[in-house]
């Protein structure tokens, strides 16, 4: 049985259309974003060249995924990180849970793969105090809802709604509903969590097979704290994030930032193993200022199987910039209410097929217009609308049509 049902998706979509707060939040958020990306690309035409290289690098990895996973594992060991491989979402949760234990304070930076495996909820259920530290993702946590965009999870929330959530759920007083005020209050509130945290959990934008280094791109600065302050860092990384070299990984970060209309990115983090120093007698000691221990959990969860499928394999090149979402006429009215339980919009349908099974993706496919604006804007040229039409075909076949 698919874990997504078309009937429910249609109900969700109708609810989204009738939700004035969501519609207003979406309207405010996307006005301008559509214009900014072409401006950035016109100003930095080199990004287009890098996008071609990223596409090519990802194709190479996906044709030989098992070997690249092995290379990544070896390279991670080489830099003193502890690699793990998880075949399923459940395995991934268990591995992380085994490392974290219970009764800990955990800070997380926004990660779609963490959401995909249901990590926050699982760690909470084991008696850990878990905090999302990306502002948008924190608002989602406080609201108890799901991220509504790949890069901007709270794209659907207006300042009024955000202010209400922060004051109600965090129990802090806000003077008015100024966005600056909300940001300042959250900063103060989370500062204490960062300092007390036992574990920091992040994702990764790209992991280099040649060196075991991974990169994380951001604007808030929360990733630096999540990955730098607690004594233990766990990175949860989909195996599709593996690229051949560290140079490729940088390219992914740059292209992702530009297509997400955040260029230059404020921060680019490179992490190759745990923190260490050899300043005294050249003896290497781990845990100078950063975490002495780094675990990297490589998550398959359907990716290796998808990599062998024509068309669906192409979804795995996705760098999660979210551009296809902003350009999709359906997404712009429904946000991530369409696309799957975690991922959303055109890329979401493909990712749902990868991670929850093709039959689940097929339940979502009929909301696609097939207009192909997404294909036009994808930096790594994923034939998103063709993947979705293929899923429509699967829907027909699996329902005996």
């Amino acid at each position, binding site marked *: 049985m698919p874990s997504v049902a078309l009937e429910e998706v249609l109900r969700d979509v109708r609810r989204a259309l009738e939700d004035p707060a969501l519609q207003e939040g979406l309207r405010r958020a996307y006005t301008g974003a559509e214009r900014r990306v072409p401006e950035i690309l016109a100003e930095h035409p080199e990004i287009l060249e890098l996008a071609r290289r990223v596409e090519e690098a990802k194709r190479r990895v996906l044709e030989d995924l098992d070997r690249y996973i092995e290379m990544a594992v070896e390279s991670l060991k080489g830099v003193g990180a502890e690699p793990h491989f998880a075949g399923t979402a459940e395995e991934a949760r268990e591995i992380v849970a085994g490392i974290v234990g219970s009764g800990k304070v955990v800070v997380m930076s926004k990660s779609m793969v963490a959401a995909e495996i249901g990590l926050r909820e699982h760690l909470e259920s084991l008696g850990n105090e878990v905090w999302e530290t990306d502002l948008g993702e924190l608002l989602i946590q406080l609201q108890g809802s799901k991220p509504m965009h790949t890069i901007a999870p709270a794209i659907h929330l207006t300042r009024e709604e955000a202010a209400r959530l922060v004051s109600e759920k965090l129990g802090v007083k806000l003077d008015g509903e100024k966005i600056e005020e909300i940001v300042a209050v959250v900063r103060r509130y989370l500062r204490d969590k960062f300092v007390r945290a036992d574990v920091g959990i992040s994702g990764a934008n790209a992991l280099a097979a040649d060196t075991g280094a991974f990169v994380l791109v951001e604007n808030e600065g929360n990733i630096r704290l999540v990955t730098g302050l607690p004594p233990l860092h766990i990175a949860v990384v989909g195996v599709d994030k593996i690229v051949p070299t560290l140079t490729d990984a940088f390219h992914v970060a740059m292209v992702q930032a530009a297509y997400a209309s955040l260029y230059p990115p404020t921060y680019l983090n490179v992490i190759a193993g745990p923190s260490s120093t050899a300043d005294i007698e050249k003896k290497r000691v781990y845990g100078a200022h950063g975490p002495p221990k780094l675990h990297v959990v490589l998550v398959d969860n359907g990716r290796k199987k998808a990599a062998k499928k024509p068309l669906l394999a192409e979804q795995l090149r996705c760098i999660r910039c979210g551009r296809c979402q902003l350009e999709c*006429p359906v997404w712009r009215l429904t946000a991530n209410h369409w696309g799957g339980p975690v991922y959303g919009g055109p890329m979401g349908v493909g990712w749902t097929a990868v991670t929850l099974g093709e039959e689940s993706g097929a339940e979502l496919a009929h909301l696609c217009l097939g207009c*192909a604006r997404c294909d036009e804007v994808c930096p790594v040229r994923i034939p998103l609308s063709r993947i979705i039409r293929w899923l429509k075909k699967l829907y027909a076949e699996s329902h005996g049509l």
Partner: protein
Amino acid sequence: MDVKLILSLLAENVERTGYPVPVDVERIYSWAKPLNLPRGGRAVLYTGALYQLAPYINSLVRHLESLEGRRAGGLALRLAKTLGKIIDLGKVVAKADPGEIKAVEEVLRSIARLLSAAGVEYGYLYEDDMYSGVILYDMGLDEAFARHAKMVAETLEKSGASLIITVDPHTTHVLRSVFPEYVDGFGLEVKNYLEILSENIDSLKPRRGEAGYRVVIHDPCFYARHEGIVEEPRQLLRFAGLEVEEPPRSGKMTYCCGGPVEAVSPSLSRRIAETRLRELQGVGGRIVTMCPICYVNLRRVGGKVEDIALHLSRRLL
């Protein structure tokens, strides 16, 4: 909506009648009668019936809109099916707007006259002007599509034509870019009439002394993104003395009219159409469509829109 039921109705309708929705079959080709077009020939005009079907599709969608979200909706359709009244469904739902039927027929006649005025020699297929099956392909009903496409291809090949002239984006795309994948050995040349008019533009003459007006162009997704037809309509409209305005999203980045989800989620389709219509209206100018689906969708949400063939024929014939 009960998508499974809608899909099976579409597939069964095409299988039994040749058309996805119940339709007055004679109306598919009777538009051509006053023109005395020769039958067949080296080049044939193939409408694929989409313009003719658009008013019927529109009335079906209006009906679905009224059923959406009501349990009774699924029930009524299911009842129609169990009673084996798939074709009779037409009597209930396909009360197409006669004005709209006349309008799309006038579009087709305008296209035919424009081709003649441009010196193109061509014939028509009359009762062999079959539906292309495009909705089956769009809905992923590949088996039913492949069966239907084979019949269409055989009919077209039998006509002896070597050039097929298409008139709408969906039929153009499916015939030119999809048929070769689904029909073994399909090798007919497919050209859209806008491409042909553009090639023969020197044979056309704009009417003198008539003041031009502003038009805002709504590119259909399938012309702009799949078939590379972007410049031709602009060139022709300008040649006809009209002032062409671009909406915020145009050409390769044009915005969908919402049509493709009209049967699955009429309310979503309507909202997308409203979004696009507001955008087009914001530019100022008469809105030009080039696709029968865009035409009925933008009209359904109150848009005053007119097909490019009518604009061109007024100025060039």
